[in-house]
């Protein structure tokens, strides 16, 4: 008797928890409301099945608990019932799958006006690269990475020269403009995940992966790494600031392009080089003096 009551309490408790829970998803800040909708749909259908199955079970506990003089029904199978249940289930599943696939289809097709933003992950942090006027990022390779070229951009790719390099972990995005996040990793797997945007994808060393979304709410959001990447995984945070076009442009202007960067480095280097040349000259002078004295 009380077995049934406790099981009933578990089910009622689950429903109550779901209805009154203070823990729920963050307010969405991107175009992916459809993801939330599919989840809600799944909750209705799946939750309904859960409740029905469990209530049926509880009913059986109440109704058919052991009695010495009762004999259970003998009924090995019931073809009609089984077929019917198969079809109903198949239908329910199809009702969940179809909208899911439609949204997925959207997820993998990036709108043409999206701005390409490279997110470069490393153990344990993030860097970003934005395209210049051409909205094209220069090709890159881990092998090119050096002090002078933190993103490993190919020097002979003209698209790379106007790329804007952001070496801080804070990324700004323009509100209502779709972004295509191009993910790179220079060491292990990572995953660029902002709960409010809902979307995510792994960054895989050796290949470039992508996803897209359209931020539609101003604010600052926390980036969490969502693929285990070693001891620093849990601390691999960053932030994304969504703002209006004007502020965004202001922020953008503060950052150097790759050619700025190269030029700066070149200056520093040539200073250094000049010193080295001087030093070498001194050395060879000394050497020749030594030789002569020999």
């Amino acid at each position, binding site marked *: 008797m009380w077995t049934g009551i406790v099981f009933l309490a578990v089910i009622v408790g689950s429903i109550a928890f779901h209805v009154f829970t203070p823990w729920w998803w963050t307010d969405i800040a991107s175009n992916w409301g459809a993801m939330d909708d599919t989840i809600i749909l799944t909750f209705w259908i799946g939750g309904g099945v859960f409740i029905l199955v469990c209530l049926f*079970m509880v009913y059986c506990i109440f109704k058919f608990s052991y009695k010495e003089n009762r004999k259970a029904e003998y009924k090995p199978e019931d073809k009609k019932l089984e077929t019917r249940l198969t079809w109903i289930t198949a239908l329910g599943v199809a009702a969940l799958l179809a909208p899911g696939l439609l949204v997925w289809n959207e997820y993998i097709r990036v709108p043409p006006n999206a701005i390409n933003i490279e997110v470069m992950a490393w153990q344990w942090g993030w860097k970003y690269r934005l395209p210049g006027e051409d909205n094209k990022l220069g090709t890159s390779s881990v092998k090119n990475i050096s002090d002078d070229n933190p993103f490993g951009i190919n020097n002979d790719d003209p698209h790379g020269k106007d790329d804007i390099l952001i070496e801080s972990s804070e990324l700004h995005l323009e509100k209502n403009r779709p972004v295509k996040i191009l993910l790179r990793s220079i*060491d292990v797997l990572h995953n660029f995940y902002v709960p409010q945007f809902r979307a995510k994808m792994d960054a895989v060393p050796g290949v470039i992966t992508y996803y897209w979304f359209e931020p539609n709410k101003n604010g600052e959001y926390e980036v969490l790494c969502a693929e285990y990447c070693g001891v620093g995984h849990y601390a691999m945070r960053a932030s994304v600031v969504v703002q209006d076009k004007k502020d965004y442009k202001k922020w953008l202007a503060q950052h150097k392009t790759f050619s700025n960067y190269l030029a700066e480095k070149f200056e520093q280097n040539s200073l250094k080089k000049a010193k080295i040349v001087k030093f070498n000259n001194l050395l060879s002078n000394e050497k020749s003096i030594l030789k002569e004295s020999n």
Partner: protein
Amino acid sequence: MLDDINKDKKHSSPRTKSSSISGGERDVDYVRPADIPDQELYHGHSFLTKWIFCQDAKVIGVQYTLTAVFTGVVGLILSWMMRMQLGFPELFPFLTAESYYQMVTMHGMIMVVYLLTALFLGGFGNYLIPLMVGARDMVFPYVNMVSFWMFFVAVVVLMASFFVPGGPTGAGWTLYPPQAIIEGTPGSGAGILLMLVSLSLFVIGFTMGGLNYVITILQARTRGMTLMRMPLTIWGIFTATVLALLAFPALFVSAIMMTLDKVLGTSFFMPVMMKAGELLAYDGGSPILFQHLFWFFGHPEVYIVALPAFGIVSDLISVHSRKNIFGYRMMVWAIVGIGALSFFVWAHHMYVSGMSPWFGFFFATTTLIIAVPTALKVYNWILTLWRGNIRINVVMLFCLGFIVTFVNGGITGIFLGNVIVDVPLSDTYFVIAHFHMVMGIAPLMVIFGAIYHWFPLITGRFLDEKLGKLHFWITFLGAYSIYFPMHYLGFIGVPRRYFEMYNSPYMPSTIGMNEFISIAVFVVGAAQFIFFFNVVKSIRLGKPSGKNPWKANSLEWLTPDVPPAHGNWGEKLPVVHRWAYDFSVPGAKEDYIPQTTPPSEVIEAEVEKT
């Protein structure tokens, strides 16, 4: 000639006996004569050959069980420590991020492979297969014995990794490269190597045992035991073993390749990488290839754990509701169908891994298709309860607990299988909650139910019901309240494998829940010691059970000795006349008809043909 050897006493009944398949007047009790001669067994005489290097599948089953449970206790203690950190961060200074990740990894691997797989197939498989199909033992007892010792060595190697410099691997149980074998991950030296070696040994050992299980079921059944008369337990274990034999190769291969990457510096899975400003020597490998191999093993692995649980729980429900399992044939086809389909869904673990997004369509579809036969099994369980005569004992309680947790976890599986829903939820606590519910708690419920059910067979004594009920309620309610709320952490977006959330804006609302969950974990974990106490106590002091205490039909309860002796059946092998589910047959005197009862002894019973 064999005909004479195996002639059953029952055949000398007054009815005419026909000796060939066709022709002659048919005897209702007729069963085809034996195909093969009786099996010859090795009988150990010393302590060493009788209990240590024992070739009796029942002893091997117990050995497997004890070893697996030992690893399970280690896994449990690790989960305690993890929850100490998650519930009360900074309270325990010895819990560092390194050690946390090592504990997560070892916990996951131990629970999935060394506890559940070994327990269901090695433990229950060994004990029950020969008994339930009416064989004297596994077909190759010697190989079977070696199988256990391989497993034992694998466990020793695994445990040894706790003591090597650098500690055990902290790569996550998925062991994804490149991270698993390069610095930055704890235990990326000796730890990961020992893990890979241990897994390879496990696979080799398991293959030896698995071949035995399969051939025993296919080729060594007793007279009258057709495949469609086998208890569902055997169907579950059989299908799971076949899956294991076909899925473990992928794990084995990826373990070899990763070992070579680590030791010889090959680049199977290792792309060009830069660590601390230096290029590593690797070049051109594919990390995603590893993921495909791993999950080609990993997804069937889920069913390797689930299918035996499905089978066992079907039998327990049927016996304890005194009613045949509803839709037996459907159940068999569902088990086989799920098994076959499980090889076509692996990449649902990789929706956000960066593989070609087009795979998403295919794998979401196959994944949701699997939901159909799975749901049918659930319906059949509850329809078995319907109009049954349900004994609400500890065994049944665990079965009911299984149904609730399994349905719950199955539904959240539909969330994660539907590719677009997986995008926000993957790698969050929603996933943790889902798989603990469906492949952690649900199979554990079945394991406990099965132990309470078969303990009288193994020891001749009952486990204590009172303690059992206490154990059940704490475990079930506790585990449910651990994992049910945890889904909602996933909705918030808390990622899995996070050592701590720090000052994340999400944190404030989750502090309370995490503390509650942790306390529940300590209670549930401690409750398991009630169970251990119960077992130890009941072995010596439990109520003697006698033969067939549950009034079950299947062969394991019909041995001449309880507990069954080596060779199981004494002089003569049993002869099977019906399926294992003739409960409450109209017209029969008792509410059960054992499988060995010939039709002539229950003439009034209106048995449907199976």
